[in-house]
């Protein structure tokens, strides 16, 4: 059986399902039909079973986890807690209810103390749920720990659950709810876990079922055939080989170079990006230096940080974006006015121009860092809408010592006059997330319009094609920095539309590198033509996929 969802990443996993049990409802407060002594025996038996389980898990875990779990085991058999349970049982309550109330008393006591004690209060909830589950002969709620590798199936994961996951044991994640921006999806992307989210029919999967989690094809296969399992295992081996393969520069099948760059939010991610084969940085976001600040950081502070990043990428290209504040990242010292539509308000270059001193200081710090290091620094401005803004930014950047100055194309207006914008600067980089939001008039943070937020939409692709054509005409680089570049198939389409470099989260580099190597420049153009001619986003993806399959099949047949 095939269960549809949204795949995160390109991975495949095969393994037995372990379901995350739902939280138990509060036990009903009704008189027990057993006498208190009998209920006390039940309660004590379950408390000691849970205590033994926790102690056992602690012994297996070792280290700091051992102390925490041992302490929890002691709490389950705590003499004061048992006194409290006995007190409730004497009034004729059931063991479930007495356990629930006794733990709740201590939970409230600790929660009221705040700080470290309040954190322990959630431990008590967890132990309470385990004991009640044991009394009811139900599976324990919370993150399972079966002691073998497994595919976790959950309704959705809360941040606290994901923190408890033993990633060494999780082969894959399947959630019934949640979309591509859910907490689970973010975790999966960050940790490269094979995941399919929003798979509604996964609710029917049972513990022990073998499933194939196929993120690349957005599906989960229940009760797979032996052939399907063999095929999935072959793909897993292929991907492992791919990851182990030496990292080569990004290129198409004929050797045409397509530099693969990393999107970074601070200098600390540099080492990991380089390890994964980043040929430079295509988008260095500088916001983190300014966020949570009441005033802009000094030139010196900025320069130190930029120098650190540029030093890590000596001999390589680093594209820094000047401060992109406003909309979802407001900064009080730049724009404190309330706006009805911040996404359409004083943000990006508009806000910087309004407080030019901040822009001047940042450009000065960047130029000084560039002069002190061997990296090739390019600097670009966010939210450019006009040629006039382009001229303003490049003139100021050059005046302050920036050698290569360009713009981000995130607004349809900039894309529609791309030839004139590019004539006024050195390069363009397309921010596909914002370009999609503004082209489709769909707020990128709003789940209800998520169906309109695909960069595969031919309207978005058309604008990218215009920018690509203008770049080719003028001989100026057109990069892509946005989630779109991380999609291995869309990456080929983007190159076909004229992108000369692709920048993405470092974890996506290997898949995109492998995908590009399968197609020639003409193939990429054919994929792009098919996608551009489609009616909508889903159709564009299907059309590109069909052309891609045709090309790879023909090649396999010929060889």
């Amino acid at each position: 059986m095939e269960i549809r969802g949204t795949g995160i990443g390109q991975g495949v996993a095969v393994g037995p399902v372990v379901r995350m049990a739902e939280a138990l409802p509060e036990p009903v407060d009704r008189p027990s039909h057993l006498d208190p002594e009998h209920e006390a025996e039940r309660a004590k038996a379950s408390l000691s079973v849970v205590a033994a389980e926790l102690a056992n898990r602690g012994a297996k875990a070792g280290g700091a986890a051992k102390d925490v779990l041992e302490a929890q085991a002691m709490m389950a058999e705590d003499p004061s807690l048992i006194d409290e349970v006995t007190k409730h049982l004497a009034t004729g309550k059931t063991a479930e209810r007495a356990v629930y109330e006794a733990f709740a008393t201590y939970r409230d006591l600790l929660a009221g103390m705040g700080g470290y004690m309040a954190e322990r209060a959630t431990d008590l909830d967890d132990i309470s749920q385990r004991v009640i589950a044991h009394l009811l002969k139900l599976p324990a709620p919370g993150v399972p720990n079966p002691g073998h590798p497994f595919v976790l199936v959950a309704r959705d994961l809360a941040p606290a659950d994901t923190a408890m996951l033993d990633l060494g044991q999780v082969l894959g994640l399947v959630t019934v709810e949640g979309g591509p921006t859910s907490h689970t999806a973010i975790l999966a992307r960050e940790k490269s876990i094979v995941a399919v989210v929003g798979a509604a029919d996964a609710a029917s999967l049972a513990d022990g079922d073998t499933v194939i989690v196929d993120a690349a094809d957005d599906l989960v296969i229940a009760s797979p055939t032996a052939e399907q399992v063999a095929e999935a295992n072959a793909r897993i081996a292929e991907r492992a080989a791919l990851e182990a393969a030496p990292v080569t520069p990004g290129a198409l099948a004929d050797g045409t170079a397509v530099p693969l760059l990393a999107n970074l939010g601070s200098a600390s991610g540099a080492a990991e990006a380089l390890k994964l084969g980043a040929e430079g940085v295509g988008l260095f976001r500088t916001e983190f230096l300014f966020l949570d600040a009441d005033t802009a950081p000094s030139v010196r502070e900025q320069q130190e940080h930029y120098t650190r990043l540029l030093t890590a990428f000596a001999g390589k290209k680093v594209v820094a974006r000047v401060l992109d504040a406003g909309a979802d990242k407001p900064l009080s010292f730049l724009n404190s006015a309330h706006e009805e539509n911040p996404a359409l308000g004083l943000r990006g270059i508009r806000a910087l121009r309004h407080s030019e001193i901040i822009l001047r200081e940042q450009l000065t710090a960047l130029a000084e860092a560039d002069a002190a290091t061997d990296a090739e620094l390019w600097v670009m401005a966010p939210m450019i809408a006009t040629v006039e803004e382009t001229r303003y930014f490049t003139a100021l950047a050059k005046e302050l010592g920036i050698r290569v100055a360009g713009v981000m194309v995130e607004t349809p207006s900039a894309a529609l006059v791309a030839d004139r914008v590019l004539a006024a600067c050195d390069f363009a980089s397309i921010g596909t997330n914002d370009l999609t939001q503004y082209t489709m008039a769909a707020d990128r943070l709003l789940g209800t319009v998520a169906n309109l937020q695909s960069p595969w939409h031919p309207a978005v692709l058309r604008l990218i094609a215009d920018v690509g054509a203008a770049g080719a005409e003028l001989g100026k680089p057109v990069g892509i920095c946005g989630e779109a570049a991380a999609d291995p198939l869309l990456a080929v389409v983007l190159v076909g539309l004229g992108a000369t470099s692709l920048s993405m989260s470092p974890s996506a580099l290997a898949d995109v590198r492998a995908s590009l190597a399968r197609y020639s420049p003409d193939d990429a153009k054919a994929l792009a033509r098919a996608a551009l001619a489609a009616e909508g986003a889903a159709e564009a993806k299907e059309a590109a996929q069909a052309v891609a399959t045709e090309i790879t099949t023909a090649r396999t047949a010929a060889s």
Partner: protein
Amino acid sequence: MVERTVRIGSTHGLHARPAKLFTQAVAASGSSVTLRKAGGAFVNAASILSVIAQGIDHGDEVTIVVDGGDEHAVLDQLVELLSTDHDE
């Protein structure tokens, strides 16, 4: 019955690991042990929940009362535990 007052040595007070070590030692001693933070009421020292719920911090004064078993040896051992810094 013997009792003594001691100052807590653990940097983070009688929480978490130090509380666990202490109540484990109490349970293993076989004696009946109660404990009181200066100004508070006596609680069962074998109960980790009661002990941590006292909110005992580094430098607080705590009185321990040991009843039954090898009272003096148990008291010495528990005082030693409480005055040591287990968070180092």
